[in-house]
């Protein structure tokens, strides 16, 4: 199954990240499979997928930590393989695991980052550190997970990056710490017009923050679109038949344009639709099988995510 929408193909927006047919292998295992997506500048892009979907591998490839086995990766207009230093000079990266040095204090971390950054604004870091209320004279090893994430975010801002790549930035945080990190992501960083690309499998936080989403599974992009557009165009059509519809009718429904997936439970049929759900509803109601009820249901991100996961599973089962 190809992604439902790949804006990179025809988008005229200047891109912060462009992946074209990206392939990354771990031995024989294809971790990222012909992945193409475009992240526009200024977007807050939520990169979703279950564990082991290839999110971190994709991010590592963007930063030049892994070389792709195929395809192209451009970040802020620079080739991530041949110009990775240029990329890293403009990108702030926060990894999914605690990657700060436990034996250093905050000022020592700042000194380290300053020595390896092309530009450094200590005032910005000091402001964030004070905003989060972090103690500057303690070693980072004594910090909680939440404090470490807040410090990592503060340090990111010191190099004034154009693009922030955050790999599971709130993993392991309690709800309060998660809220603080996300709140600052939106209120402060996104307001400055910076692009944020963050991976997560916590759907509620992506929905609260992101304006674009991409869903990946087993290395393949299932969908990539603006979140609002996705919600507008993807709805569930709930059909309740007067009598149990015959198999031929269910097969016919599955084949209708705009139907992405179908689930049947007795007389109830649930269609995940894409596009003009109104006209699809009219088409179905004009068919010879009487309907007791027709309901159009809006989807939240969790529904969408689960629907894509289910559709992908069904698709693969169908293939096998």
């Amino acid at each position: 199954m190809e992604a439902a929408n790949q804006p990179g193909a025809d988008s005229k927006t200047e891109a912060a990240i462009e992946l074209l047919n990206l392939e990354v292998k771990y031995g024989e295992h294809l971790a990222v499979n012909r992945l193409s997506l475009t992240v526009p500048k200024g977007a807050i892009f939520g990169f979703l997928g279950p564990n082991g979907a290839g999110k971190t591998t994709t991010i590592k490839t963007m930063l030049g930590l892994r070389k792709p086995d195929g395809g192209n990766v451009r970040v802020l207009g620079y080739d991530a393989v041949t110009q990775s230093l240029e990329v890293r000079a403009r990108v702030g990266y926060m990894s999914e695991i605690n990657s700060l040095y436990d034996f250093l204090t905050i000022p020592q971390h700042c000194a380290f980052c300053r020595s390896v950054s092309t530009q450094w604004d200590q005032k910005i870091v000091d402001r964030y550190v004070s905003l989060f209320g972090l103690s500057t004279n303690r070693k980072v090893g004594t910090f909680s997970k939440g404090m470490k994430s807040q410090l990592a975010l503060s340090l990111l801002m010191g190099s004034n990056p154009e693009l922030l790549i955050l790999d599971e930035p709130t993993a392991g945080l309690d709800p309060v710490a998660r809220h603080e990190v996300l709140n600052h992501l939106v209120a402060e960083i996104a307001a400055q017009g910076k692009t944020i690309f963050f991976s997560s499998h916590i759907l509620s936080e992506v929905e609260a923050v992101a304006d674009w989403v991409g869903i990946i599974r087993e290395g393949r992009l299932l969908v990539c679109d603006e979140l609002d557009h996705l919600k507008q165009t993807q709805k569930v059509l709930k059909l309740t038949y007067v009598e149990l519809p015959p198999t031929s009718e269910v097969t016919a429904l599955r084949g209708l344009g705009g139907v992405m997936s179908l689930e049947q439970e007795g007389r109830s049929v649930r269609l995940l639709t894409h596009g003009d759900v109104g006209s699809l509803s009219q088409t179905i109601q004009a068919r010879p099988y009487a309907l007791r009820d027709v309901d159009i249901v809006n989807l939240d991100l969790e529904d969408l995510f689960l629907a894509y996961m289910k559709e992908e599973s069904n698709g693969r089962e169908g293939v096998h």
Partner: protein
Amino acid sequence: MVVKEFIEARWKAIIGGVVAVLCAASLAGTYNLIKNLLAGQLTGNAAQQIPSQLQGTIQQLTGSYDGYVWSQWFSKNGPEILAILAAVLGASLIANEVNKGTIFFLLSKPVSRGRVLLTKYLVSTFILLGVMVLSGIALLVAAAIVGHPQNVGGVLISTVLLWLGILFVLGLALLFSVLFHDVLRPLIFSLLLTLLLSIPGFIPNATLNDWSLTFYWSDFAAYQGTMFPLKALLICLIAALVPVVLAIVLFRKQAY
């Protein structure tokens, strides 16, 4: 970055330094004690029970202060202590970053991998040099106190020679540190390989000795100041560079 490396290695450097300085000073300062102790063994009734070959070795060992200090520090204890310190320092340089996950923080910064590796390596070389210089000073001071002032130039050149030789161990540990993602394997493999390469030096055969790095990094003539060990310096320098160059090549290709 340099400061961070020094902070990270500080306890290893302090512990290694204290052990090395104490060992060098005690070896230089206890010559008379050891000599009298062994001489007593050779003159008493117990001497009959000591094989003649061992008696010869004891006499050779305690025959001259210079020979004793050189053999015990620059040829035996010094290389052993410093090789262990070099392996401990080198083994953690990359493997520890990978093991703790900080490699992503480090490599996401706009610095080349070559610079990252060389900075780490150079900091360790300076730590080793510092430990060796301090040990050399401790040796000179202790020798002067017990009334056997040593040739400063000889101690200096022997220290430099041993430092270059030990850099081979550091380079090996660094190379294994790039290859493995835990600290233990680089530590063990670098020490084992060094030991393996030292074996030809233990065998009393001139041809075999030529193939041992330990033979070059501990040169008695250089210690006495009777010969400048140019060949030994060049061989130790080349041997030190080979694993580092290999480590840089591998580190540039390594995926994390």
